[in-house]
C-alpha cells in the first residue's frame, strides 16, 4: 500500500470514489499517477540541482565561479536553461545505427533509474512501497541499466560507443559483486532486506560504526557503478570522447544525463539507508535528515571527482577483484563471526 501520503487520506480518497460507484481501479491509478509524478518531479529537480551544484563545487575547487548568469543568483537556473536547450536540440539518429535498439536504450536506462526509487525510504512511512526484498530489488533493477548502456553503445555503431559500452558493462559487473557482498553485512545485522526495517534496525547505532569497511567498499563500488570519476572510464572523454552516448543528442542525451544523476542519488540514498541510519537524527524532520545525509554523500562523490585522476581500465578491474572483493569477503566473515559470538 502506498505510504507516501498519510494512510487516512488515501483511504478516504478510495472511499470517496467507491461512494460514487466508480470502479476501485480508478482511484488507485490516480494515486499511483500522483506518486510517480511526484517522484519524477523529485528526480528532475534533484538532477538539475545536482548538475548545478556539481558545477559550482568544481568551479570553486578550481578557483573560478562556475555558472553565474542564468537566473541571477549564482546562475541557479543554469540547469533549467540547459534542459530547455537540450529540448530544443535536433534529434539525430545516425543512419548506420540500429534504430530500434538505439531508441529503446534510453527508455531502459531511465525506467530502471526511476524504478529504483520505489524502495527509497525518505522518512518513516514516506516510501512508495516497502518491498520486503528492498535492497535486493535495487540491485536487480540497477543491473537493467547496464543492459541499457550496452544497448546504447552497441546500437550506435560507433567504435567509441562500443568500447564505452563494453567497458561500462565490464565495470558494472565487476563492481556489482563487492557491492552486493558489502551490503550483506548490514543485512545480516538487520535480519531483513526491507529498507525500512534496515533503518529501524539502526535505532541505537548506525551501521557505519559496525561496518566501516563495508561502507567504504560500498561507497567505492557505488562511485564506480554510477560511472563517476575516478571510475568514469566508460565515458572517459580523453580516450573515448563521450563513451556509450557519443551518438546521442538532444533529449535522448538528456535522458541519459538525467538517469545518471538519478542513479547517483539512488546509490547515495541506499548508502544513507543502510549505513548512515536513514532518516534518523535529532531535532530536524526525518525527511530532511535523510536528504542531508544523502546530499553529504553526493558532495563527497563530487569532491572525489574533482580531486582525482581517472584510473585505467585494467587498474579498475584490479581494484574491484583484488582489493574490494577480498575486503568485502573479509568484512562478511568477520561480521558473521562477531554476530555469532555476541548473540
Amino acid at each position, binding site marked *: 500500500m502506498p505510504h507516501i501520503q498519510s494512510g487516512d487520506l488515501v483511504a478516504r480518497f478510495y472511499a470517496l470514489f467507491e461512494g460514487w460507484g466508480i470502479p476501485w481501479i480508478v482511484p488507485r491509478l490516480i494515486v499511483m499517477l500522483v506518486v510517480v509524478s511526484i517522484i519524477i518531479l523529485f528526480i528532475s529537480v534533484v538532477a538539475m540541482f545536482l548538475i548545478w551544484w556539481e558545477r559550482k563545487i568544481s568551479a570553486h*575547487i578550481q*578557483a*573560478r*565561479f562556475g555558472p553565474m548568469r542564468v537566473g541571477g543568483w549564482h546562475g541557479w537556473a543554469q540547469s533549467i536553461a540547459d534542459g530547455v536547450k537540450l529540448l530544443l536540440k535536433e534529434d539525430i539518429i545516425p543512419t548506420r545505427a540500429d534504430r530500434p535498439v538505439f531508441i529503446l536504450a534510453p527508455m531502459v536506462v531511465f525506467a530502471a533509474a526511476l524504478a529504483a526509487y520505489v524502495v527509497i525510504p525518505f522518512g518513516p512511512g514516506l516510501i512508495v512501497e516497502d518491498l520486503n526484498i528492498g535492497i535486493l530489488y535495487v540491485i536487480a533493477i540497477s543491473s537493467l541499466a547496464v543492459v541499457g548502456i550496452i544497448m546504447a553503445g552497441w546500437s550506435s555503431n560507433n567504435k567509441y560507443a562500443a568500447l564505452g559500452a563494453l567497458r561500462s558493462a565490464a565495470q558494472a559487473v565487476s563492481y556489482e559483486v563487492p557491492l552486493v557482498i558489502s551490503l550483506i553485512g548490514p543485512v545480516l545485522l538487520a535480519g531483513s532486506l526491507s529498507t525500512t526495517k534496515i533503518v529501524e534496525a539502526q535505532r541505537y547505532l548506525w551501521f557505519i560504526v559496525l561496518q566501516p569497511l563495508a561502507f567504504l567498499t560500498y561507497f567505492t563500488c557505488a562511485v564506480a557503478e554510477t560511472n563517476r570519476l575516478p571510475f568514469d572510464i566508460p565515458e572517459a572523454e580523453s580516450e573515448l570522447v563521450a563513451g556509450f552516448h557519443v551518438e546521442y543528442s538532444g533529449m535522448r542525451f538528456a535522458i541519459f544525463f538525467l538517469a545518471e544523476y538519478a542513479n547517483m542519488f539512488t546509490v547515495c540514498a541506499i548508502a544513507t539507508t543502510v549505513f548512515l541510519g536513514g532518516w534518523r537524527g535529532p531535532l530536524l524532520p526525518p525527511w530532511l535528515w535523510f536528504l542531508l545525509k544523502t546530499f553529504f554523500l553526493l558532495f563527497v562523490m563530487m*569532491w572525489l571527482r574533482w580531486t*582525482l585522476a581517472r584510473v585505467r581500465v585494467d587498474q579498475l578491474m584490479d581494484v574491484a577483484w583484488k*582489493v574490494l572483493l577480498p575486503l568485502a569477503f573479509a568484512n562478511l566473515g568477520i561480521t558473521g563471526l562477531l554476530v555469532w559470538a555476541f548473540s
Partner: protein
Amino acid sequence: MWRYLRELWQGFWSIILSMQITLRYLFTRAVTVQYPEEKRQLPVRALTRHVLTVDLDSKELKCTACDMCARICPANCIHLEGEGKGKARRPKWFVIDHNLCMYCNLCVEVCPFDAISMYTGMYELGGFSRTNLVYDMETMHADGFYPTIMTPRSPAGAGVKAPPPAGAGKQTRKA
C-alpha cells in the same frame, strides 16, 4: 600480505591528502573575472587596435604617408596612399586590415613620427563580416578616441599600473 595492506593504506592515504587540498581550495576566492561586466586592467603596453595619432598643436595627423609601416608589416595588412609633397604630404587614404594584423608592433616601432600606435586599449574587436575588421583612416583617427590614454611617447618608461582602459571602448565611437 603486509605489503598488499600497506600499499592499500598508502593509496588510501594519498587520496585523503589530495582531497584535503581540494577541500581547502573549495573555500578560497575565485580568481576569474566575469568578463563583460568586469574587465581586466590592461597593462600600458597592451597591443590593441591601431590608432593614427594627431599632433596636439595643429590637430593634424602626424602620418606623412612614408609607407614604412606598410613595408615592414609581415602580414601585409597596411595599405595607404599619400598626397602632397614634402612637409605637406599626408595620407589620402589609409587602411589596416585587422583580419590579417598579427599585433607584432613592428609598424609602430618603425614609424619615424610616432604617427601610428597600438596602445588604444580597445581589444573588443569583432564584427559580423570580415570587412567590419578593415579599418580606414576615419575610424582610426585619434580624434575618435578622446578622452583615453593616448600613445605614450616612450612606453618603456611607463609604470605597470596604468589607468584602466575599461570602458574606453564605449565612448570612442564617433557620432
